[in-house]
C-alpha cells in the first residue's frame, strides 16, 4: 500500500482536534471529512489526497470515543495512520469499522520519515519502505485478533467461531 506522508510531529493528537465537538451531531460522512483535523490544521482538507498517510507521535486519537474521528480521516482519503502509539478507542474504531490502518512505528521510522515522503507499507512483512529516501523500517506487528479483523474487513465480517 503506497501513499504520501502528512506529518504532525507531536504527541497526543486528540479527537477534539481531529473532529471538533460541534460536529458530533453530523453523521454525513462526506461532510465530516470537510472538517477533519480542523482544530489543528485548517488547511488539512485542501492538502490531503486519496491514499495519503498521516504520521504522528505518541497517543494518537486520545480523548473521546467518537467514531467521527476515523470516519472523517478515512473519508478524506487517509488510508493509514503511522504513530508511535495509539489511544485505545481510536485504534479499535479504526480497525473494527475498517476505516483505516493504525500502524505502530518505532522512533527510527518517526524520525526518518518526512512530510511528503512516499511510503510503501507491507503489512504481510511488517515493513515500511520509504521510497523517497530509500530506507526501510519495521512496523509493530498487529496482535492476532487485530490482524484477523483487518484481514476480514472489519468486525462484522470477522467470524470468531471459525477460529
Amino acid at each position, binding site marked *: 500500500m503506497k501513499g504520501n506522508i502528512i506529518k504532525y510531529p507531536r504527541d*497526543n493528537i*486528540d479527537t*477534539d*482536534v481531529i473532529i*471538533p*465537538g*460541534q460536529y*458530533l*451531531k*453530523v*453523521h454525513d*460522512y462526506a461532510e465530516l471529512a470537510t472538517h477533519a483535523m480542523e*482544530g*489543528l490544521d485548517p488547511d488539512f482538507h485542501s492538502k490531503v489526497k486519496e491514499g495519503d498517510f498521516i504520521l504522528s507521535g*505518541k*497517543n494518537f486519537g*486520545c*480523548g*473521546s*470515543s*467518537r*467514531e*467521527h474521528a476515523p470516519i472523517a480521516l478515512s473519508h478524506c482519503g487517509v488510508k493509514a495512520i503511522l504513530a508511535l*502509539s495509539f*489511544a*485505545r*478507542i481510536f485504534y*479499535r*474504531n479504526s480497525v*473494527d*469499522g475498517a476505516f483505516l490502518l493504525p500502524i505502530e512505528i518505532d522512533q527510527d521510522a518517526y524520525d526518518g520519515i518526512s512530510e511528503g515522503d512516499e511510503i510503501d507499507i507491507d503489512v504481510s512483512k511488517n515493513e515500511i519502505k520509504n521510497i523517497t529516501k530509500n530506507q526501510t523500517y519495521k512496523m509493530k506487528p498487529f*496482535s*492476532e*485478533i487485530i490482524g484477523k479483523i483487518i484481514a476480514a474487513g*472489519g*468486525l*462484522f465480517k470477522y467470524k*470468531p467461531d471459525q477460529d
Partner: protein
Amino acid sequence: MNIVEKILARGSGKSSVAPDDVVFADVDKVMMHDVSGPGVLKVFDKLKKQGIPVDKLWDPTKVWVAEDHFVPSADKMSAENIVKLSNFTKQYGIEKHFKYGMGQYGICHTISHEEAMVMPGDVYVGGDSHTNTTGALGAFACGLGHTDIAYVLLNGNIWFKVPETYYFKLNGKLPDHVMAKDVILKIIGDIGNDGGAYRTMQFGGSGIDEMSVESRLTLCNMTTEAGAKNGIVEPDQKVVDYLSQRGASNFNLVTGDSDAEYSKIFEYESSEMEPMIAKPFSPDNTCVVGEAPSVELDKSYIGSCTGAKYEDLVSAAKILKGRKVKIRTEILPAAISIYQRAMENGLLKIFLDAGVTVGPPTCGACCGAHMGVLAKDEICISTTNRNFPGRMGHVESQTYLSSPMVAAASAVTGKITDPRDLL
C-alpha cells in the same frame, strides 16, 4: 484473579482469564446517546446494504438510551437526531429511554448511577468514552465506538483484550478541602495522559473506603483521561446502599481474590493531597492550586458527568453561600434528579443569589457544542474532564480543569483560588 479478570471470565464463560487473553464477553448492559445512537444507525444502514440483518436487537431490555450532548436541541440538526433516536427506540422496543422534557433525564454516565442502570459485576459498555465512570459501582464499564456498539446490539457480546491492572491505593481520609477530582488530577499528572493506556485503573485502600460513591465515580470518570480501558472500585456496603436507595436489589458483589495480581501498585497519602488544576491544553498538565498561574478568568463552569453530581453541587454551595460571583458562572446539574434535590435543599437559591446562571443537564459546553461555549482568548475554570485545544469552544480559548470547590472559589475571586481561602 482480580475483580476485572473475574468479571470478564464470567462474561466469557471461562473459569479464568489473564491479561492479554482475547475474549468475547457477553454484555449485561449497553448504553447509547444522541451522538452515538445516530452513529449506530449509520452503521445499521451500512450493514443493511451489505445484507446483514438488523431488524432485531439481541435483547432490548438490556439497552438504555440517554439524551445529553445536544439537548435541549441546539439547532435543527440536533433536533432531528433526537427524532431519529426516538424512532429507533420505538422501532426496536427499547423502553429505557431518558427523554429530556419528560421527567428524569441527564448526562448518560450520571443516569447510569442515579437510575441504577448498571449493577456491580456487570459487563457494561457505552457509546461514550467516559463510560469508565460507572466502574465505581464495581462493574467492568468501558467506552466503545459506533461500530462496536452496533455489534453489541445485534450480537450481545464483544471482544476485549483482558487488561493488565494498575492498582492505586489511597491511604487515609481526604482533608475537607480536597476532592476526588484533585486526587485523579494528581494521578493523571503523575502517570501522564497515556499512563493508563489499555489498562484497568483500580482504586482501593482506606481512602477509597472512606469515600462516597459519588467521589469514586469522579475517580473512575477521568481514568479515560489517562487512556485507561476502564476504572473500577470493588463494591462495598456503600454501593449496595446507594443503589438500593435508587430501587436496585439482588446484588452480586464480585471482588478480587486475596491473591489477585496487579501489574503495578501506586500508593498515595490522603494527608499529602492538595487542591489541583490541569492547565491548558492537557489533563496531565497539572499543578497544585498554590502554584497556578495568575490569570484573569472569564468564566467558571460547574457541570458535566465529572463535576455536577449532587455532592459536587453541595461542595460548590459551601463556598458560594452568601457570596457573589465575580465572573460569568454557570452551574448545570448533571441530571434532573440532582437538579430537584438541589432545589429541595436550597442549593439553587444559594447559586442564584450568588449571581450564577443555572442551566439544564447537558454535555453542551463541556464538549464545545452549545449552551455556554468559549470565545477566542476566553479563559475558563471548569469541573469537566478535558482541556484540549478547542474542547470547550474556540480553538484559542483556554480551560483549566479543577474540582467544584476550586471552580466555585475561583468564581468568587476571578482568579484560580484555593478553597481554603474561602472556607
